[in-house]
C-alpha cells in the first residue's frame, strides 16, 4: 500500500489551494448563497481557464486524461474552501459518458465539456428523492428519431448554469435510459429554484413534452442501469472527497480557535475535554481521508470497487457531519452565530451528506456487495 500522493497530485493540491484561497473565500461563498449568480459564473470561467473540468476526460477527447484519484485531490481542496462551483457535477457526468457512451456522443460532447462550452449536471432523483435506478418514473416516448420527455427531476445542482442535464428516464418499453438533455433556455424545460442548505443553486427541472434526439442517448437497458450505478458511486466518492477536505478545514479551524481562545487564564485547548473532542475529530477526518483515497484509487483501475465506494460515502456522510457538530461545541457561543463561518461548513456537510445516496442508501449497497 502507498498512502502518498504522486507528484501530479501534490502539484494539483498546491495549485488548487493557492487559487482557492484567493478566489473562493467565504465572502464568495456567502455571496453565492445570497443569490449572486455572477459570482458563480466568474469563478467558473476562471476554473475553465485552469482546465479543472477537463481533468479526467481522456486526451483523445480534449481532456488531460488524469485519474479519478487525481480528481479526488482537487475535490478535497474544493471541499475545504466550500468553492461554489460545479466540478463534481461536470466531472462525474463526463466520467460516465466516457465509459458508457457511444463513439459519436463522446466525440460530440466530451471535447465541449473539456473546453467549457458545455456545462453538464446530473438530473437523477425524482419526487421520492431516491438514488435507486428503479425509482425512475420520468417518461420518454419515442416519436420518430426523437424521445419525448415528460416529468420532473428534483435536486439538480447548478441547473440554472448548466447547458445540459445527464438524465435518467424510462422509455416506452420500460427500459431505463440515460440521456443528455439540452436544458439551457430550452422550451419545454421549467426550472423551480429551491432554497438549499448547500448554498449553491439547486433546482427542480420539469420537462414538458421535450423532444430530445435519440443520438443523445448514452446508455439504455442493462447498460443504463450499470451507468447509473457508476454515476451514483462516482458522485458519492466525489462528494466524500469534498467532505474529507471540508472535515480537515474544520479540524484546522477548531485547533486554531481553541489554541487562542482563553478562559480561566489559559487557552481552552489545554483542557482535556476539549483536546479529546479534537482527537476524535482528527481520527474521523483521517479515516474519511483514507477511505476516500482507497475508493478513488479503485476508480483508476478497470471497473471500481463497489465496497470501497460505499464505505467512503458512508464514512464521509456520518463522520464529517458529526465532526462539524463537535466543532460547534468546541467553538462555544461564537460558533452559534450567523456571523461566524462555521455554519457554512456545517450546512454544506449536511447537504453533501444527502447527495448521491445518503449513508443509509450506501449501507444497503455495501450490505449487498458483501453478500448480506
Amino acid at each position, binding site marked *: 500500500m502507498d498512502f502518498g500522493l504522486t507528484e501530479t497530485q501534490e502539484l494539483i493540491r498546491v495549485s488548487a489551494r493557492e487559487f482557492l484561497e484567493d478566489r473562493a473565500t467565504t465572502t464568495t461563498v456567502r455571496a453565492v448563497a445570497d443569490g449572486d449568480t455572477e459570482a458563480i459564473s466568474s469563478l467558473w470561467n476562471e476554473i475553465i481557464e485552469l482546465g479543472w473540468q477537463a481533468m479526467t476526460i481522456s486526451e483523445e477527447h480534449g481532456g488531460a486524461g488524469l485519474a479519478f484519484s487525481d480528481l479526488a485531490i482537487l475535490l478535497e481542496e474544493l471541499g475545504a474552501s466550500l468553492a461554489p462551483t460545479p466540478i463534481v457535477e461536470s466531472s462525474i457526468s463526463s466520467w460516465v459518458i466516457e465509459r458508457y457512451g457511444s463513439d459519436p456522443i463522446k466525440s460530440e460532447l466530451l471535447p465541449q465539456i473539456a473546453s467549457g462550452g458545455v456545462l453538464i449536471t446530473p438530473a437523477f432523483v425524482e419526487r421520492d428523492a431516491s438514488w435507486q435506478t428503479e425509482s425512475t418514473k420520468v417518461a420518454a416516448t419515442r416519436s420518430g428519431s426523437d424521445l419525448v420527455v415528460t416529468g420532473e427531476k428534483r435536486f439538480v445542482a447548478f441547473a440554472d448554469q448548466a447547458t445540459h442535464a445527464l438524465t435518467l428516464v424510462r422509455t416506452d418499453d420500460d427500459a431505463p435510459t440515460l440521456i443528455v438533455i439540452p436544458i439551457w433556455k430550452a422550451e419545454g424545460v421549467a426550472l423551480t429554484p429551491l432554497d438549499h442548505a448547500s448554498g449553491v443553486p439547486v433546482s427542480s427541472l420539469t420537462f414538458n413534452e421535450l423532444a430530445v434526439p435519440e443520438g443523445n442517448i448514452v446508455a439504455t437497458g442493462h447498460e443504463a442501469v450499470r451507468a447509473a450505478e457508476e454515476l451514483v458511486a462516482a458522485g458519492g466518492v466525489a462528494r466524500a472527497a469534498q467532505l474529507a477536505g471540508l472535515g480537515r478545514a474544520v479540524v484546522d479551524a477548531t485547533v486554531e480557535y481553541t*489554541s487562542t481562545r482563553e478562559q480561566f487564564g489559559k487557552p481552552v485547548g489545554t483542557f482535556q475535554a476539549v483536546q479529546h473532542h479534537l482527537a476524535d475529530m482528527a481520527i474521523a477526518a483521517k479515516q474519511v481521508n483514507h477511505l476516500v483515497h*482507497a475508493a478513488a484509487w479503485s476508480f483508476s483501475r478497470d471497473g471500481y470497487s463497489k465496497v470501497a465506494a460505499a*464505505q467512503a460515502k458512508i464514512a464521509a456522510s456520518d463522520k464529517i457531519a458529526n465532526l462539524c457538530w463537535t466543532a460547534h461545541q468546541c467553538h462555544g457561543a461564537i460558533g452559534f452565530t450567523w456571523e461566524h463561518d462555521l455554519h457554512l461548513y456545517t450546512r454544506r456537510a449536511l447537504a453533501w451528506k444527502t447527495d448521491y445516496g445518503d449513508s443509509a442508501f450506501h449501507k*444497503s449497497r455495501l450490505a449487498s456487495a458483501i453478500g448480506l
Partner: protein
Amino acid sequence: MRFEFTPEESEFKSQLSSFLDDALPADWHGPADESRDDHWELNQEIKKGLAERGWLVMSWPKEYGGADSSPMMNTIFAEEMAYRRAPGHDRFGTRMLGPTLMRFGTEEQRTKYLGSIARGEIQWCQGYSEPNSGSDLASLQTRAVEDGDDFVVTGAKIWTSLAHRADMMFMLVRTDPEAAPHRGISLILVDMKSPGVEVQPIVNMAGVHSFNQVVFDQVRVPKANLIGQLNDGWRAGMTVLNFERSGIDYAAWARAALEEIIEHVQSEDAVTSTKSDPAIRIKLAELHMEVEAARLMCFDVAWRQGKGEIPSSEASMSKVAATEVYLKVLDYGLELLGMYGVLEPGSKQALLQGRIFKMRLFYTSGPILAGTNEIQKNIIAQRGLGLPRK
C-alpha cells in the same frame, strides 16, 4: 497512491496463511491473544515454526538474524496472525525488547539475548506498570539500589502478561529517587528464577489468568543487565511503547469477529437473522466500513514508518480507532445473539461457543492497555494537532 499489496507482499501473506492452515487445529477459533495461556503448547509450537521459516524476527536487521523486512510487511504479518487468531508471534521479545536492545544494548547484551529471541527459545515479559503507577508511569517506585556488581530490586510490578510463563523480564526501576521522575529511571533485565521474585496470578474479568502481579523482595540483578545508561531508562523504555502501540491486531480481530457474526446471522442457528430484520444489514455494513477505516489507519502507520517517519500521533489514532471498533463489533454481536449472548463458553446451548461474550469481556482491556485511549487522545491532540499543553 496504491491500495493493494505488492506481488511480493501477497505471496508472503499466502505463504503465512498456508503455514497457519497446517499449524492451527481444524476449526480453530482462538483465543487470539498470546498473553492468554490456555494454549501455551500451541503458542510455543507456532513460535518455533515461525522461527524456522525466518518469520518470527523478519523485521530485524539481517545482522541479527532478521530479514530487514519493511514495516508494511511486518504489519501484513501481524494482521494475518491476528486475523487467524493465531498465538505465537512473541511480541514482547520480537517487537519490543529486540529492537530496543539493537538501539540501546551493548554488543555483549545483543549477542546474549537476540539469538534466543530469534530462535523462539526464551519467553520475555514486560515489567512497566505498578500498583500505583499506571498511566502516570514515570511515578514508578520499584527501587534498584546499587550494591557491588549488582542492583538490589525491591517493589512490585502489575498487569504483567505471561509473567507466570516467562523466563526473563525487561523492567523499569527507579535508580535515583532524588532526580525528577523521568530522570531517575533505568531499564534492566531480570531472570524470573532469581531468588526473591514471586509471581502472584491475577484472574481477569473474563475468568482468564493472563496477567500477574510480580513482587520483588531484594532481588539481586547483575549490573551487566542494565540496558543503556544508568538513569536514562525512560528513553529506552518509551521506545518499547512505540513498538507496542499499533492497532493492527485489534483491526484484524474485529474483522474476524465481524465475519463470524455475519456468517452466524445468515445461518439456521441465528435467533436474530438478516431475514427477520433488514435493519441488521445496515448496521453490519456500517461496522464493515468502520473496520476498514481502522485497518487503513494501521497501514498508514506502517507506510509512514517505511519512509523513516516516527508516526507517533498516527499510531495513537490507529490504537484508539482499532480498539474502539473491535468492541463495537463485539457489542453488536452480543446484541444479535440476544439472550444466548450471555451464555458462558462451554455452556449447553451457547451460540458461537460463547466466544463473543468471552471476547467482549477480555477485550475490555483493549482501550486500557498500552497507554489508555485517553492518554492516546492527549498524544493526538498535543503532538499531532499541536494544541497547547498549558
